[in-house]
């Protein structure tokens, strides 16, 4: 062993030490953002405090604004197509009451199968309820609840909720029916569907769909480039 060898190892140790110190300093700099002792960190902390105090101020004087949840509503009573056109070329539709107000309801009709004039081809698959379980014989431009109270087509959810309590409860808690807009109502409004947006009231089971989009997973196909 000679002196120069010691010299080399000393230089190497110094280099390593320098490296370690540099790393520690870097770490320190990044840690400082969490409230260290450098000037920058102090500045950051004070601005955070300002934000906090302004938030507290706004909390104590003005309660945070809450945006509304809008539940879509049907436009109104359905209109029946007549396959006729008016002078402007627009399709002529009629209200339910146009026909129904001129004829008295036949309470024997429970399903579309027993109808021989109108609505006869209609598909119906909704448990064992009959037409007048929901439709209002006193005014066909409205619906009726199980206790006979009139309810408008626009408030159809009240009607559905009579039987479908669990779904209604899920809906009210945001776990049924999906949503659009904001999950955080302090930042923006939310829009939700109503029952008949997704469920046809006469055949309420959700319809079958055809998938239209498929990611092409790499392991499923031949390679596209020459990797």
């Amino acid at each position, binding site marked *: 062993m000679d002196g120069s060898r010691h010299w080399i190892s000393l*230089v190497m140790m110094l280099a390593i030490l320098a490296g370690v110190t540099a790393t520690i300093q870097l770490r320190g700099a990044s840690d400082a953002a969490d409230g260290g002792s450098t000037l920058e960190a102090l500045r950051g902390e004070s601005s955070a405090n300002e934000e906090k105090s302004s938030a507290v101020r706004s909390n104590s004087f003005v309660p945070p604004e809450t945006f509304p949840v809008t539940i879509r509503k049907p436009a109104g009573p359905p209109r029946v197509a007549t396959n006729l056109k008016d002078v402007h070329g627009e399709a002529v539709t009629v209200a339910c009451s146009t026909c129904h107000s001129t004829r008295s309801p036949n309470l024997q009709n429970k399903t579309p199968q027993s109808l021989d004039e109108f609505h006869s081809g209609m598909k119906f698959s909704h448990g064992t309820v009959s037409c007048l379980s929901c439709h209002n014989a006193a005014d066909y431009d409205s619906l009726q609840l199980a206790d006979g109270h009139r309810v408008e087509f626009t408030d159809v959810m009240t009607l559905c909720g009579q039987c479908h309590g669990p779904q209604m409860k899920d809906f009210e808690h*945001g*776990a049924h029916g999906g949503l659009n807009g904001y*999950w955080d109502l302090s*930042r923006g409004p939310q829009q939700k569907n109503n029952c008949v947006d*997704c469920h046809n009231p006469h055949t309420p089971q*959700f319809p*079958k769909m055809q998938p239209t989009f*498929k990611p092409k997973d*790499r392991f499923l196909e031949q390679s596209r480039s020459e990797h």
Partner: protein
Amino acid sequence: MTTDNSFPQEPHDGEHLKPLLPILDQPSTRRTLLKTAGAALGLAAFGEALSPLMVIPENVSVDEFLQQHYKELTDEDKKKVFARLEAETKERFGADVTITDSKPIPGVRFAYAINVSKCNGNGKCMEACNKENNHHRGVDQSYIRVLEMTKGSMDMENGSTTYDHTVPQDDKFYLPVQCQQCDNPPCVSACPIEATWKEDDGIVVVDYNWCIGCRYCEAACPYHARRFNWELPEIPPEEVNPNQGYLSNRIRPQGAMEKCHFCLHRTREGRAPACQEACPTGARVFGDLNDPDSAINYVLKNKRVFVLKEELGTKPSFFYFFD
């Protein structure tokens, strides 16, 4: 790194003042020769090993090459980096975009739940993800994979992603799988350079510019939730989503890893994730775990809930439930 004469050569015993180079001038003992050859080889190998660091790849600008880790960027740095990325997007994809970095909302902890009784496998979520997150149109990339599973089995190995018939089939159920935002994320532990980490609101994010594309995280993820950009994404300019997040849906560079980030550029602004808005069956529920009145907490308290591969201890923030 160049070899130079200043490298301290070891002088031979008793010959301190003799010039060390050329080697041939030294008494050619076997020992000196071997040492000199060894030193030269070592230097050469060191230089060779470092050489990739000395050359900046053609498709990477100097600024990008020298860019720091996201967590070490100051606000000033970020402004420059985002401006550079916006300019690059304009140049490469022809689209004017805005890149931001939404921070976690203090006190908010995100979680997601999917109703497997409702999901019918229609795949609208995958399509929405593709559009929202500026995925490669060539391969129709998406962060979501919907598995068609046989009823009575939870074997995801046998789930099909290629089904092409009307859904739902009577003997099947449908399991959309995306990043589970684990509390104990194996992908984060696997990353050798901390290019991926878990944020305070529970979202596991990737710094696409720091990622070296080793794909260890892809191998570590038990949910197959990570995707690798084999190619630079191809997106028509009019389809580029201009609302972009640095850690989320900005167009990823080639060779970077990516994954679902709960649409953080939307959700951290209070908006619903794109896949939830797109779901026609209402099977998806998203919200804040820390809010006792949130939809997600209603589901966790009132439904039969499970997580995928619970036995692995990954502690997902992603739940599945049925009515």
